[in-house]
């Protein structure tokens, strides 16, 4: 994805993942009166992670709507409002809490169009935080986006860049079907230069964030910065990594994944979710299906350890994909 041209002022303007998410929500609220934001503490608190700070003042409590702690209730209300023509953005504090709303997301949002024979569409956007790295222990740190990616009927997005934080929301709201967006908690404070808006924005394709010839490093969301750092370090060792940022977890862009593997003949899948039955397993299976004869080495996976995320920093770090783990896996494929 080529970066659009920037003016020198824009080149120097810095922004953050959180600010870009907020700018996207603000823009959507200004552009379409059917859009509203709903969730726990999205109003005067400004969102559990500060994403909606200041929006209540601009748009008022009807459109920046605090909800009771009723995940199933307010996610279902978002689904109902979407059926009735609104374009709700529903914020769930974390993916762990989203399990309380899984009935609504799976049994209703993802299913109503089909059960009704195409009559009842659910154009809702559900945003939630995912991932570990902040010592929040086992009920605020998991990466369950792979589970959601297994559900037919929903689109699952995982922004890993400022540009995606800023520009994925509008096409998600334009989608007539439900879209679930995962925001990795470690990315909110990530900063970089502001990028001017593109003319159109694709939320279907994976992106090659760094081109290389020796090994494909396939990742998404919060793992992307680690993978890019690993790729830099590998380059110093003479290993040229092709970094694929999945961006969309459902549908998966198998063509871009297979295209990368066809260039490098080796693949390392990096995913903070659990290894067993996880998203990494699906990607490895797709590589086996789509690019088996291109492979010169077994597919490697670097995943979250099979343990509820522990509180102490040294144990949490050990449970998560680390740059050194990614490098070691890459070396094994070329070794």
């Amino acid at each position, binding site marked *: 994805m080529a970066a659009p041209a920037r003016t020198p002022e824009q080149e120097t303007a810095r922004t953050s993942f959180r600010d870009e998410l907020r700018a996207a929500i603000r823009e959507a609220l200004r552009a379409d009166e059917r859009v509203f934001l709903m969730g726990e503490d999205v109003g005067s608190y400004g969102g559990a992670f500060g994403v909606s700070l200041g929006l209540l003042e601009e748009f008022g409590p009807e459109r920046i709507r605090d909800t009771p702690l009723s995940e199933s209730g307010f996610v279902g209300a978002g689904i109902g409002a979407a059926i*009735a023509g609104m374009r709700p953005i529903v914020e769930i504090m974390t993916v762990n809490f989203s399990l309380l709303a899984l009935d609504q997301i799976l049994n209703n949002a993802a299913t109503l169009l089909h059960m009704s024979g195409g009559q009842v569409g659910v154009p809702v956007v559900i945003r939630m935080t995912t991932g570990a790295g902040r010592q929040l222990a086992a009920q605020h740190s998991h990466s369950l986006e792979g589970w959601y990616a297994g559900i037919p009927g929903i689109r699952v997005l995982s922004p890993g860049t400022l540009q995606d934080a800023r520009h994925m929301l509008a096409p998600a709201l334009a989608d007539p079907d439900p879209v679930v967006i995962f925001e990795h908690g470690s990315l909110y404070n990530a900063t970089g230069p502001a990028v001017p808006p593109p003319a159109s924005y694709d939320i279907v394709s994976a992106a090659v964030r760094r081109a290389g010839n020796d090994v494909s490093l396939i990742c998404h969301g919060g793992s992307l910065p680690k993978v890019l750092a690993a790729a830099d370090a590998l380059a110093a060792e003479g290993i040229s990594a092709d970094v694929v940022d999945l961006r969309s977890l459902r549908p998966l862009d198998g063509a871009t994944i297979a295209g990368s593997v066809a260039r490098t003949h080796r693949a390392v899948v990096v995913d903070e979710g659990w290894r067993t039955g996880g998203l990494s397993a699906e990607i490895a299976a797709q590589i086996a299906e789509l690019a088996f004869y291109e492979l010169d080495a077994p597919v490697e996976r670097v995943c979250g350890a099979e343990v509820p995320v522990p509180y102490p920093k040294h144990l949490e770090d050990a449970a998560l994909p680390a740059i050194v783990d990614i490098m070691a896996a890459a070396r094994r494929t070329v070794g």
Partner: protein
Amino acid sequence: MTSARQNDVQEPAHPRAERDGEAAPEPSEQTKHLLDLAGQMLLIRAFEERCVELYSSGAIRGFIHLYIGEEAVAVGVNAALSPDDAVVSTYREHGHALARGVPPEAVMAEMYGKATGCSHGRGGSMHLFDAGRRFYGGNAIVGGGLPIAAGLALADKMADRSRVTCCFFGDGAVAEGEFHETANLAALWDLPLLLVCENNLYAMGTPLAHEHAQTDLAMRAASYGMPAWAVDGMDVVAVEKAARRAVDGILAGNGPHFLEMRTYRFRAHSMYDPDRYRDKAEIERWRERDPIPLLMRRLPAGTADLPEMTERATAAVDRAVKAAQEAPVEPVADLLRFVTHEGA
């Protein structure tokens, strides 16, 4: 079959005087309305009794949850709703769909899994939909329709539309968290939501007192600060009156209302259920309060011809079955349709 809110009464399809071709006295508007309600209940009854036969013969499959005995609730509540209002229902929703005006042909074709079904055959008995009539299913997760109904009502409130969303659910759903989340949300936000609890005394096979520490369900709803009361769910006149009062309150801006309809299903929970948990004498006692004869007895002498009305209902079901039998199935090549709009 949907009554307009503006009119308390609706023209019956075939006024009796015309059929007789003689100068019978014109029934009053109220009598005509009651005859219409009776016709709707008879249609639902005939439809479901045919479902039993069709299920037994293997023509239709899946779970079939019969509404026989509870018809007064669907018919009476619907009489108080306007075509602009929305309805969210449960897996025991044949009666709600038919009362809402979904054609028997479309409902029966759905039972057959045919492409002409009201959900294109994809839903079956438990997932009847008709978006054009604002009939939003057909939800087979107990309590799962409640938050959606709150959302439909929220959209109306935000867009300043004067209409009501009616959500049907059973006594079992009152034990679900989604009921309490929705009741709180609806009361907190003053949503134009009519909560109709069909208390048929059993959550599948579990009696009310075995699943609820407090069996006064209306009282529990009232604890959320909404008007809530119990209604004789076997008496269609009482049901309609209560529903009108609730709808008026909702449209006046008084927020959600809860009606506990005390009713009873004469049949087992589903076609799979051997019904071992209910005393036969109890069932017989409730059958004495069958909502259809109860209504017929209220009609002025000489205004209702029950055999003729029954025959008309049966004929409508015959036509529905014939149409369903002759309707096409979807080709297997279309399997992945309706998963997303792309594939629809």
